[in-house]
């Protein structure tokens, strides 16, 4: 019986890293937008935070796009 431990290990590693990275990026994006909300309440702006937030969301969208590519290919 040959168990492909290498494949299982890489599935584990990749899943863990990708999931945590994606969720981290997305949460940072949300935090950035929330900062704009707070800044707006106080009459200020938070341009850097918002730019960062959109960069985070763009990365997440790219990941989703890659996921669709994997499904279709």
């Amino acid at each position, binding site marked *: 019986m040959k168990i492909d431990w290498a*494949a299982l290990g890489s599935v584990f590693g990749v899943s863990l890293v990708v999931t945590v990275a994606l969720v981290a990026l997305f*949460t940072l994006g949300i*935090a950035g937008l929330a900062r704009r909300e707070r800044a707006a309440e106080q009459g200020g702006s938070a341009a850097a935070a918002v730019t960062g937030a959109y960069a985070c969301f763009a990365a997440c969208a790219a990941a989703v796009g890659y996921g669709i590519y994997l499904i279709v290919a």
Partner: protein
Amino acid sequence: MESFSLILAIVVVTALAFDFTNGFHDTANAMATTISTGALKPKVAVAMSAALNLVGAFLSVEVANTISKGLVDEAGIRPEVIFAALVGAILWNLLTWLVGLPSSSSHALMGGLIGATIASAGVGAVHGDVLVTKVLLPAVAAPIVAGVAAMFATRLTYSFGKKAEGSKASEKGYRAGQIASAGLVSLAHGTNDAQKTMGIITLALVAGGAVAPDSDPPVWVILSAGLAIALGTYLGGWRIIRTMGKGLTDLQPQQGFAAQTSAATVILASSHLGFSLSTTHSVSGSVMGAGLGRKGGVVRWSTATRMFVAWGLTLPAAALVGAIAEWVTGFGSWGTGLVAAFLVASSAAIWKISRREVVDHTNVNEPEPEEPAGVVTTAVAAVAPPPTAGAVSEDLTATIAAPVTEPAPSPAPAASPATTV
């Protein structure tokens, strides 16, 4: 299509019925977290999942081809064997739906095939080591991999997002995130599971001589399989959705997002890296992981234990029914007719029993009749078999009479189809 024998027609119809139960059963995988956290309204969620399943069915025929070309020796397989396998798989899917437990449709199908093959060709025809590496090990690995990833992701999203909590951005953001990841899971499901059925129908058509070996699935097969799985998905296995979204743990949007992202990642990574993990097992694992990842989050291990037991039983139970069905079809046409009649009758019976306590889009988000942690109520026993006989019998004596009659009917049908064939 010209030489379309009766048995072939029966196999095609049964395969589509299996496809339907498959969609029905697996709606929960994609949409349970989205529905329970309120990111999408139940009906909208299942409609979206159904549409993506349909789209997924048309995207490629690669999975279908691995099943219909070369995996099984096409010369040696008869349509009756496929029919028997499907009967086993359908009955197991319906039973687990009745008790509201998520279990892998693929395992049910594999179990049915193994049982039917044993009955027709002997035990030697099944490869034990393949069984371990392709079925048992993934079933253990999937929930652990997905669960660990979801747990860390949940912790992280709570600590990173602390400042954003309660803001509009966070509410909208987690909603969008959940919808996107649930959509990915639906699409992946359509390409995988609808195609399994296409592969099986094509295999039967090849075995029955209706299409040439090594051909791609005919267009009507793709179309009907896609529609069957989409319809099943749209009708929604609300019982299973409730168990996954509410029964295992209480999910907040952050957790739903982390769980669904982890599930989508695990499913895609595993199929891409060549160590296929079951969608159902991954999603269940990630939901539990998300439950563990939140401070004060609780996983209801009694529900989880029932689910694990169902996973363990999936293969042997479907195999047993498949084997018996194959044995009966061996008696000739009337045997096949008998099995078909039995399938219809028991499906109708299961549906009838399910009407005693209806779960649909209106009450899917009501918590299972169960108090948080520790308090085992007798009402739970009415929905599903008790986790341990001891715990419930204690409760029954404590709460007396009224509900006592309720728990009896649900375990009973679980026994009957296997024994009364």
